[in-house]
């Protein structure tokens, strides 16, 4: 069925009339297919509706990349928006005065106990000293389960003789404090979001342990009800993030998008197996591809983008050789640098290059400032920087929310770059170019 759907998608998305801009009709046609794909992926029906609406607005009037059909362009936009939406929020855990408490909550069988042990292992690898406390007194052998897992990874499990989950949690916290533990992970019993008594119990456990992190453990195979479940847990215990489990299967995992959309809470980890080291940080990009399930279209898009980047690089080199270096070039090289980020380590290992890679740490904030300044220039100013006089500088500074000095610095940086480009054109090595780029925009 999925294959049939994918075929259909390729047909419609490929067949759309070629045109330079996305118009209402093109977007509408593509969106119908995308809607279907999202529904097949178990994204909640209402979330699909809202998402499709907002992307439709964003897509209208956008340019279509060369070598993509308009339909593929829409998929590209959807893919980016999905990743952006799911990537929002801080995926790190919060830590406070030790012991930091992490409370694991969720429906029955979602993977809380397993994830508790996985998290403990992960935290210990990060240099923490964690402990586990099982407060699931309901499920047969739930405590033994956590104890056995704890033993496998040699992390203390605080078993208690008490018969009340709240008391067990409180006792666990006291023990953690006494034993100098810095993170206490509380594994609770699975419960239905409509079970008033058990939800009240969860609130009591929360109030007794004051967790810095409440994590909703959610099965990636969950269907339309993910929204109802997440909203209920959100309302009653206000969780901070999500662990998505069983992602090692072939579930498309639309629940991830649903939960993010209705609660706004970040997905912090992905659980990808039963073994205790199979817990990963969440990759919104990958999840976006998975939910869309349009592998072929997406790889097409990727190829098109690579081609464009290659074109860009060739174009840039040509311009550099001619000794020209406008603010458009500046912006483009900046962006190329950013994409290069993960490559830095590898490049640094190449003899001779290592030194030049130093100072290449273009941090995101700085990046954003430089971008803001350049984007506040008119296209003409970007092309012909010598136009930028005093009053223009003032306007640009205001427009980008920085000081005139910073605008000045950037103007100087560009001039330096242009000089270097001229040397490059004459065949000299621009020794400082990456550093110069890296410095620009630093306060």
């Amino acid at each position, binding site marked *: 069925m999925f294959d049939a759907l994918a075929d259909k998608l390729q047909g419609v998305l490929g067949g759309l009339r070629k045109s330079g801009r996305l118009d209402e009709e093109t977007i509408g046609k593509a969106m119908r297919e995308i809607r279907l794909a999202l529904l097949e992926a178990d994204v909640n029906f209402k979330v699909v509706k809202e998402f499709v609406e907002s992307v439709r607005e964003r897509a209208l009037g956008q340019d279509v990349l060369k070598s993509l059909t308009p339909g593929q362009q829409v998929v590209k936009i959807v893919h980016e928006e999905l990743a952006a939406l799911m990537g929002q929020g801080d995926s790190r855990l919060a830590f406070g005065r030790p012991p930091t408490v992490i409370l694991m909550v969720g*429906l029955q*069988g979602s993977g809380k106990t397993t994830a508790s042990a996985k998290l403990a292992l992960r935290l210990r690898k990060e240099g923490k000293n964690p402990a586990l406390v099982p407060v699931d007194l309901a499920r047969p*052998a739930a405590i*033994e*389960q956590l104890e056995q897992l704890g033993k496998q990874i040699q992390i203390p499990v605080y078993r208690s003789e008490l018969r009340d989950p709240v008391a067990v949690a409180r006792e666990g916290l006291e023990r953690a404090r006494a034993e100098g533990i810095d993170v206490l992970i509380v594994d609770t019993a699975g419960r239905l979001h409509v079970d008033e008594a058990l939800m009240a119990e969860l609130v009591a456990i929360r109030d007794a342990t004051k967790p810095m992190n409440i994590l909703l453990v959610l099965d990636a195979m969950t269907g339309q009800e993910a929204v109802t479940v997440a909203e209920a847990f959100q309302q009653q215990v206000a969780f901070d993030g999500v662990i998505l489990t069983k992602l090692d299967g072939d579930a*498309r995992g639309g629940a991830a998008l649903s939960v993010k959309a209705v609660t706004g809470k970040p997905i912090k980890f992905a659980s990808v197996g039963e073994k205790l080291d199979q817990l990963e940080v969440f990759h919104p990009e990958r999840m976006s591809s998975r939910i869309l399930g349009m592998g072929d279209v997406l790889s097409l898009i990727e190829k098109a983008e690579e081609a464009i980047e290659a074109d860009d690089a060739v174009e840039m080199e040509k311009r550099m050789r001619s000794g020209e270096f406008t603010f458009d070039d500046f912006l483009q090289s900046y962006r190329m640098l950013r994409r290069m980020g993960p490559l830095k380590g590898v490049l640094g290992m190449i003899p001779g290059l290592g030194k030049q890679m130093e100072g290449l740490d273009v941090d995101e904030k700085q990046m954003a400032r430089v971008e803001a300044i350049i984007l506040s220039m008119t296209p003409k100013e970007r092309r012909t920087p010598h136009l930028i006089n005093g009053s223009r500088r003032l306007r640009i500074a205001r427009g980008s929310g920085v000081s005139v000095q910073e605008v000045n610095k950037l103007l100087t940086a560009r001039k330096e770059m242009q000089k270097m480009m001229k040397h490059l054109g004459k065949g000299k090595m621009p020794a400082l170019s990456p550093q110069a780029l890296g410095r620009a925009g630093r306060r």
Partner: protein
Amino acid sequence: MTLGWAELLGDAAAPEPEESRRGLFRRLRGGLSRSRTALAERIAAIRFDPDDDETWQELEEALILGDVGVQAAGELVQRLGRRRSIDDLGTALAEEVAGLFGPPPRLDLAHKPAVILVVGVNGTGKTTTIGKLASRLTASGRSVLVGAGDTFRAAAEEQLEVWAKRAGADFVGSNKGQDPAAVAFDAIEAGIARGHDVVIIDTAGRLHTQTNLMEELIKVRRVIERRLPGAPHETLLVLDATTGQNGLQQAKIFSQAVQVTGVVLTKLDGTAKGGIVIPIAYDLGLPVKLIGVGETLDDLRPFDAADFGRALVGGDPGEDTAAD
């Protein structure tokens, strides 16, 4: 009439206590007394006009919200469209839903011992279902043995042992990491030697995409069959009602691997109503045999298509509520 245990087990009908039957409906509808399911709400909100395309669209959307899936939703809408007149949308839809399921299910227990193999993805409720089923079977006068074929998950054996005790069933344990096929073999040997009526074998949860684990399961089945030709007499796939479209894939692949004879739909006491069993029953022809409606010994029921249809659309629960 809701399908009773006697019919499911193929026993002479003992009168079912009215109390438990009424309790069933309440549970099946879960939190419905307080809040209706999202699907039920949508259906109730539709002002049905068969000549208006929009209402058909709304109906289809409502069904998608119940995890029925785009295709099965389309099929249901088409079937409704072919009806001459529709008095009450909820009732009509519930009937169509019920009509997609085959005849009332039966558990094949006419063997000594009858062997039931229980399979499914992780955390759906296999072990718990075995506990409940064993209890129901011992209550029906059968002697039952359960075998701890999950030799992988931490404390899986201990968990099943607790359930066996609760259910009054005999128990064959296992060692961590032992070959599950060997455990199944031991369980059947013991079942025969001790003269039990039913042997139920638990297995570790596994995703249908894990080929090596599916191979392992195929081997378990083969060993059972070799030890007792004709067995396993039932191979039950346990499916979580909150599962979305992936459920269809699970059913397909488990069926291909170990010839599933029926589905157990668990966790119906939540707000999810398990609409995915509709394409499973209709496209794959797999009967749903049992439903799980909670975490205690008594929370297992025979599957009744009409009740399921009514619970799904949240329409008039019929005779059962009348008695409430």
